[in-house]
């Protein structure tokens, strides 16, 4: 037995270690399983699923930016039915908590997706993506509207007894207000952060590089912003936080845990080095052994702030 306890708990969700794979950056697990043994990681979050399959946006969907990338995939996904039929059987082969990420255009659709999926035993928790630029209600984006986020949480809470994680938008002034309402409405945890709204134009054609004009900014560029959002939540609201945004190595994982994350998600890095999640798990063990840390969960919110 390893001398280091890497396990973490997020509400009732038990993970063997804090390293999760972020939604939209590992598809449904099959391709990345060629590089990282899924049995060694903490959890896998599916690409956002919607009730019906979605074709997604026309090309160009991605563009590189300084230390980051923009994406506007447009929630291309197979839909819940096809997911159950053709993707779950593959994922069943692994001993890794499967978290289903759901995106929808209305509260009703969130609830319906959750209801359909909750009976699937393999699914251990839901991550509700309220922060996707394509999802609007009354012109406002769901994720930027505290009341809408509260309502989604409340309704989804009724639809399943499995843990619910609400994935928050960083495109707001005070993210802790959103974490607060999630807690109040019975959510188990929050993921912070989804991508930041950004754009880039081709100066020769004067057109946006991305078909959708705006895209979501991810990668190391956003790490300081993500850390500040996680810290804000962890100092103000008593709810587990899954830290996400720009993680490139084990040191970034430790930094995210120190500022308040119970677990973390690795996103853009999977595109650059799909072997990284597995390597990071090993490096965390080395780090803990070296520092004499016996339970990695002790790192969560272990920041020292003089006040």
């Amino acid at each position: 037995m390893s001398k280091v306890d890497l396990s973490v708990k997020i509400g009732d969700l038990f993970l063997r270690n804090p390293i999760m794979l972020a939604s939209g950056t590992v598809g449904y697990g099959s391709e990345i399983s060629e590089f990282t043994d899924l049995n060694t990681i903490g959890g896998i979050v599916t690409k956002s699923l919607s009730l019906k399959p979605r074709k997604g946006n026309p090309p160009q969907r991605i563009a590189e930016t300084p230390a980051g990338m923009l994406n506007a995939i447009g929630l291309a996904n197979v839909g819940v039915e096809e997911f159950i039929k053709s993707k779950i059987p593959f994922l069943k082969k692994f001993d890794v908590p499967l978290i289903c990420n759901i995106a929808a255009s209305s509260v009703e659709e969130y609830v319906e997706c959750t209801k359909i999926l909750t009976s699937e035993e393999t699914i251990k928790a839901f991550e509700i993506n309220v922060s996707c630029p394509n999802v609007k209600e009354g012109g406002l984006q769901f994720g930027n509207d505290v009341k809408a986020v509260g309502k989604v949480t409340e309704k989804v809470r009724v639809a399943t007894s499995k843990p619910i994680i609400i994935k928050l938008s960083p495109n707001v002034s005070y993210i802790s207000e959103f974490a607060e309402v999630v807690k109040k409405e019975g959510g188990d945890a929050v993921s912070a952060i989804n991508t930041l709204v950004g754009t880039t134009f081709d100066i020769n054609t004067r057109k946006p590089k991305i078909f959708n004009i705006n895209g979501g900014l991810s990668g190391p560029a956003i790490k300081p912003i993500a850390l500040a959002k996680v810290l804000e939540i962890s100092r103000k609201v008593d709810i587990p936080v899954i830290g996400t945004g720009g993680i490139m190595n084990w040191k970034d994982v430790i930094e995210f845990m120190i500022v308040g994350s119970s677990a973390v998600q690795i996103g853009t890095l999977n595109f650059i080095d799909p072997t990284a999640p597995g390597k990071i798990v090993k490096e965390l063990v080395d780090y803990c052994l070296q520092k004499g840390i016996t339970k990695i969960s002790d790192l969560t919110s272990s920041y020292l702030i003089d006040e």
Partner: protein
Amino acid sequence: MFIIESPIVEKKILQDNVFLLKMHSPEIASVIKPAQFLNIRVSSESYPLLRRPFSVCDVEGEHIYLLFNIFGEGTRILAGKSSGDLIDILGPLGNGFNLNDDYETAVIVAGGLGSAPFPFVTRELNDNKEIISFIGGRTSKDVITYGMKNVFTASDDGSSGFKGSVVELLNSKIEELQKKNIKVFGCGPTPMLKALKEFCVKHNIVCEVSAECAMACGFGICQGCPIESTNNSEKYLLVCNDGPVFNVRDVVI
């Protein structure tokens, strides 16, 4: 599909702004097929952040070749590498050309850096099929005929061979070509592939093209590389996984 670091054993400047890198990579060399590609991390830092896709240009024993020009930051950094430097490779990726169907003459059509995959194609076809290569570029500087056989060139300004586009050149040879049992293999900028598709559809010629587009992962996890399918309007194909080689009739170019 794996990630590996392969050393550069030789770097050559083929012509103005066109580089050829030779790497010792037995793992890739033993499995890769023509028009499959590699996603290369040019820097271990986060600048540039993403890998860059390159066709394998040729394979010789345990060695593989890349052919590229300096386009932006990534290729500039790559061009700055020298013998002994390790290159971080993710590959082999994609499907590759179907070289062994029922045809007698392979007609290669390339524009600019679209020449990259064809030295390997030429090597593989050698002896089995007749090859005719049509190679175009804006000026003679952009016409890359490295590793090709039986070459006809075209350039926009007439500085190399035929004055006009490579597809116009092809068109000028249509009568000859129609006498043969041919299959066209194309690679180059999208406008060229568009013209090539029209040409092949019009003349009822079998044609496969290697498509290009922005990519993040190169192996199907980011959904960043869609291409419209002619057979199923509900779903995009992915250039990295379903391609980069497509039958021209299967995709909207």
